[in-house]
C-alpha cells in the first residue's frame, strides 16, 4: 500500500514516465505553493485579463505570421514564420516572464531569481521585474556573459543584477545549478522564474501554458491565411519552451507533422553537441526526469553549441514524452549549418534570426524531401539575431576583432 506522502503526489506532473519533482526537501513547500497559486490564478478571470493586457500592450501580441516569399521560392515550400522575434526584448521568452511575474506578485514575493543562457530569458525577466518594481537577480555562465555581452548590459540597465556562474563549462547548466542553490537558501522571499519548459513540476506545465500562446495564435492565423492547418510545424529545442508552446495546440491535429530541432554543435559524432533527445538517455537533472546527455556513470556531460540558448544537456520532460510517442520528430542542425541559415534569412528576407531560431530554419531545407512540393510549413522564429552578430563575425572571420 502506498504511504501517505507517496499517494499525495501520485502521477501529478508526469508526462508518461518523465517529469516529476526531484529536488531537495527544502523546495517542496515552495513548489506546492507555486502549484496552488498557479491553479488559483488559472481559474481567475482577473489574472487572464491582466496577462492579456500585458501581452498586448507591453509586448506586441499577437505577433504576425509572415509568409517568407523568397525563402519559400528557394525551398519549394510555403514558409510561414511566426514572428516571435518581434516581441519586446526580441524573443518568445517574454510570454513566459510576463505570466510568471504575475504569479510572483500574487504570491507576495519580493525578489525575482532567474537563470539565463543566451541572456534572452534574463532580459525578459529583468524587464518584467522592472515593470513590477521587483528586485531581480540573474545567474549567467561566465562563458555566456562573454558571448552575449550586450544582453548583460541590457539586464543591468533595467536594474537587474547579473551574477556570474563560474563552475563547470560556465554556461546555462551551471547558471541553473547556481540559481537553484540560491533559491534553496532564500526560498521564503524569492520567486524562481525558470525560463524554459524544464525543472521540477509544476514548471514544465506553467512555462508550456504561457508559451502556448504562440501555437494558439499561429493555428488561428494559419486557418485564416491558408483556410486550413499547415502541413508541418518546426521549432528549435533548447529546454524546449518555444517548441512546446508552438506544438501544444497542434498535438491533436495529427495530420500536422511536428519537428523539433536540437543543436548538433560540431556534429553528433564528435560528442561536442547539445542534441539531448538524439544522443541522450533518460536521467535526472534540475529537478526532472527527462532525456539527458550523460556518461556511462550517470555524470552529466557538457553540451556544446554556438547558440548559448541551446547549449544545455537536458530537455523539457514533455519533449521526452513526445519523442517516445512519436508525435514529434526531433532532428538536429550543426553550428555551421545554423550560421549559414543565419546569413541566408538575413539576405533573403531582411530578417536576422537568433542563432537558436536559425537551427529551426536549417530543418526547413531538409524537410523538402519529406513534404509535398509547396507544402505549408509553420516555423517559429523564436528570436532576433542582433545579439549574435559579434559571434557570427568572429566565427566566420568576417569582422574585425570584437
Amino acid at each position, binding site marked *: 500500500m502506498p*504511504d*501517505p*506522502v*507517496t499517494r*499525495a*503526489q501520485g502521477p501529478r506532473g508526469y508526462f508518461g514516465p518523465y517529469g*516529476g*519533482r*526531484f*529536488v*531537495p*526537501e*527544502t523546495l*517542496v*513547500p515552495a513548489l506546492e505553493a507555486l502549484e496552488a497559486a498557479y491553479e488559483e490564478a488559472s481559474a481567475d478571470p482577473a489574472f487572464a485579463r491582466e496577462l492579456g493586457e500585458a501581452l498586448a500592450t507591453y509586448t506586441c501580441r499577437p505577433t504576425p505570421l509572415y509568409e517568407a516569399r523568397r525563402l519559400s521560392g528557394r525551398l519549394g515550400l510555403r514558409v510561414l514564420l511566426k514572428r516571435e522575434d518581434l516581441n519586446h526584448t526580441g524573443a518568445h521568452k517574454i510570454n513566459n516572464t510576463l505570466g510568471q511575474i504575475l504569479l510572483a506578485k500574487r504570491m507576495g514575493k519580493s525578489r525575482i531569481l532567474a537563470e539565463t543562457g543566451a541572456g534572452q530569458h534574463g532580459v525578459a525577466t529583468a524587464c518584467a521585474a522592472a515593470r513590477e518594481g521587483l528586485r531581480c537577480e540573474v545567474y549567467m555562465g561566465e562563458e555566456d556573459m562573454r558571448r552575449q555581452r550586450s544582453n548583460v548590459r541590457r539586464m543591468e540597465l533595467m536594474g537587474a543584477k547579473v551574477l556570474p556562474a563560474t*563552475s*563547470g563549462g560556465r554556461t546555462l*547548466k551551471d547558471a541553473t*545549478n547556481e540559481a*537553484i*542553490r540560491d533559491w*534553496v*537558501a*532564500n*526560498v*521564503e522571499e524569492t520567486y524562481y522564474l525558470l525560463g524554459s519548459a524544464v525543472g521540477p513540476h509544476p514548471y514544465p506545465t506553467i512555462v508550456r501554458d504561457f508559451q502556448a500562446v504562440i501555437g494558439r495564435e499561429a493555428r488561428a492565423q494559419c486557418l485564416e491565411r491558408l483556410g486550413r492547418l499547415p502541413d508541418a510545424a518546426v521549432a528549435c529545442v533548447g529546454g524546449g519552451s518555444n517548441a512546446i508552446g508552438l506544438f501544444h495546440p497542434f498535438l491533436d491535429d495529427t495530420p500536422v507533422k511536428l519537428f523539433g530541432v536540437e543543436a548538433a554543435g560540431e556534429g553528433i559524432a564528435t560528442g561536442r553537441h547539445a542534441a539531448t533527445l538524439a544522443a541522450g*538517455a*533518460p*536521467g*535526472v*537533472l*534540475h*529537478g526532472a*526526469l527527462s532525456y*539527458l546527455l*550523460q556518461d*556511462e*556513470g*550517470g*555524470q*552529466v556531460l557538457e553540451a556544446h553549441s554556438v547558440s548559448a540558448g541551446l547549449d544545455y544537456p537536458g530537455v523539457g520532460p514533455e519533449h521526452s514524452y513526445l519523442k517516445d510517442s512519436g508525435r514529434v520528430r526531433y532532428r538536429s542542425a550543426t553550428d555551421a549549418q545554423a550560421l549559414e541559415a543565419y546569413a541566408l534569412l538575413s539576405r533573403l528576407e531582411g530578417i536576422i534570426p537568433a542563432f537558436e531560431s536559425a537551427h529551426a530554419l536549417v530543418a526547413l531545407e531538409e524537410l523538402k524531401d519529406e513534404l509535398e512540393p509547396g507544402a505549408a510549413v509553420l516555423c517559429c522564429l523564436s528570436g532576433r539575431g542582433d545579439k549574435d552578430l559579434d559571434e557570427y563575425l568572429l566565427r566566420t572571420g568576417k569582422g574585425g576583432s570584437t
Partner: protein
Amino acid sequence: MNLAADLREKKRAGRKALAPYLCAGYPAPEATPLLLRSLADAGADCIELGVPFSDPLADGGTIQQASARALAQGMTLAKALGIAREFAAERPTPLLLMSYLNPLLRMGPRRFADLAREARVAACIVPDLLPEAQGLLTEAGAPPLVRFAAPNTPEGRLRELAALDPPFLYCVSVLGVTGARDAVADSTLAFLDRVRAATAVPALVGFGVSGPGQATALASRADGVIVGSALIRVLSECRGPEEWQGAAESFILPVRRALDGAA
C-alpha cells in the same frame, strides 16, 4: 545490527551520534580507504560516503570543488561501492552511501541494490529523491533510505516522513546548501524541537556543522550531527598524503570529545 536499531540504542543510552562525511575520491582515490579507517577509529558512529556528482544541487562551494576534483581523478559510483565493500571487511562502523539520484539510476536500481548489499551499505542518502518518487529506486534488498527534513517542512509532512520509518531523519540545519557556518541560529534549535515533538525517529543534524561548540549546541536538541564541508576543508589544506589521516583525526577527535562530554 541494523543502523536504525543501532541509532535507537545509542539514543536510549544518551550517546550523541557523530557522522562525518567524506567525498569518495577526495583528495585522491587512495585517500578514501585511509580516511574511512581513521574516522572509524576516531569514534565515528557511522560514516557518510558521498559519491561525487557533476551537478551537486544541494551542495555549496566546498563539496562542489571536492566533487569536481574526485571526478577528474576518475571516481565513480561503482568504485565508491568497491571502497565501501573493502571497508566493511575491516571495520564494523556502518557506512551511509550518499549519492544524487542520476548515477544510481544509470547503474540501474537492481544492480545498485545488489552491490550496495554486498558492500553492506547501511542506508542511502539521496538528496534529490523525494518519497513521492522513491519507486524509481526501491528494489528488494536495497538499503533503507534516509529522509530529509528542513526548517520549512510543515508539521504534517514531518510526521509523514517519520512514518516512512527511515533509519534516521537528516535534519537540514538551515535553508540552504551544504557549507561550514559559524553560528547556530535560534530558528534551527526551534526546528529541531519541532522534529523531536513530531517523532521518536532518531534525528541527525547536518549542513553547516563546523566544530565542537556548534556540534554540541545542535546535538543538545537532536540525536547526533553530520559533519561534511568543515572536514573537507581541513583535507583541502593538507600539503600531502602523509597529512590526510592526521588532519582528519585532529578534526574529528575534539568533536567526539565535546559530544561525549555534553551527553
